[in-house]
């Protein structure tokens, strides 16, 4: 499972500790999630998506997420 937790966290200026407290887990658990060492429960995935205010599939995916560069290039081509 792939996720964008680190990207979204940095975008929102949240530390691991801040996010961990928001979803009631230990900061190390956020680290393991970001590293891909742990697959969260549905409840935790929904809580994390809720903190960022996005749908859960924007944070977690079974397929690798496209790089930011590719996403921006495609967005530029479409506009």
């Amino acid at each position, binding site marked *: 499972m792939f996720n964008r937790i680190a990207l979204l966290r940095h975008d929102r200026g949240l530390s691991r500790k801040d996010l961990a407290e928001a979803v*009631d887990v230990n900061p*190390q*658990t956020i680290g*393991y999630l970001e590293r891909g060492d742990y697959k969260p429960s549905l409840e*935790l995935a929904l809580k994390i998506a809720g903190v960022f205010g996005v749908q859960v599939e924007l944070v977690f995916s079974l397929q690798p997420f496209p790089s930011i560069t590719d996403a921006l290039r495609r967005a530029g081509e479409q506009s």
Partner: protein
Amino acid sequence: MSHNSGRKGMLERLDDSVRWTGIPAIAAGHPRRRSLRWPSVAVLVLATAGFLVGFGQPNQWWGYAILMLGFGLANLMPILGPVKPWGGPERVDEFDRALRARAFLAAFSALAAVAVIGLWAIVGLSLVQGWTADALRSTIMKLAFVLATIYTAGPTCYASWARAPIDDED
């Protein structure tokens, strides 16, 4: 100006040394848990080696001493290692629960295997070699200490190797 300015006094050094042991953090309910990969392997090796050295020999004291050293050190593993106990004051989240479940499952599997192999080995060798009752009692007792060591150090060993340590800092 004193030459001692900026230096720590004896009491501060004593405080630092006590904090270094981690005991105040444990008493406060926030123990600093760490990966104990090689220490957990070392205590399991010590206990096993001590058991094998003194196998069937009730008066073989140094094998027993090695076994008891391993057993004694193994009791520190649940306190300092990455597996959080049931009912403690620490926050146990879903990651901790999943890790603990896998760690104990692995440890109990190893414990069951060692128990079966050890008991059959004791039964077989005691018959073949004609052990005395004293030798039989001593070896069964040593096997019990090996099993207790696996129970205390096994989950720590599994959990320490199953997850790479992660930095607390962001």
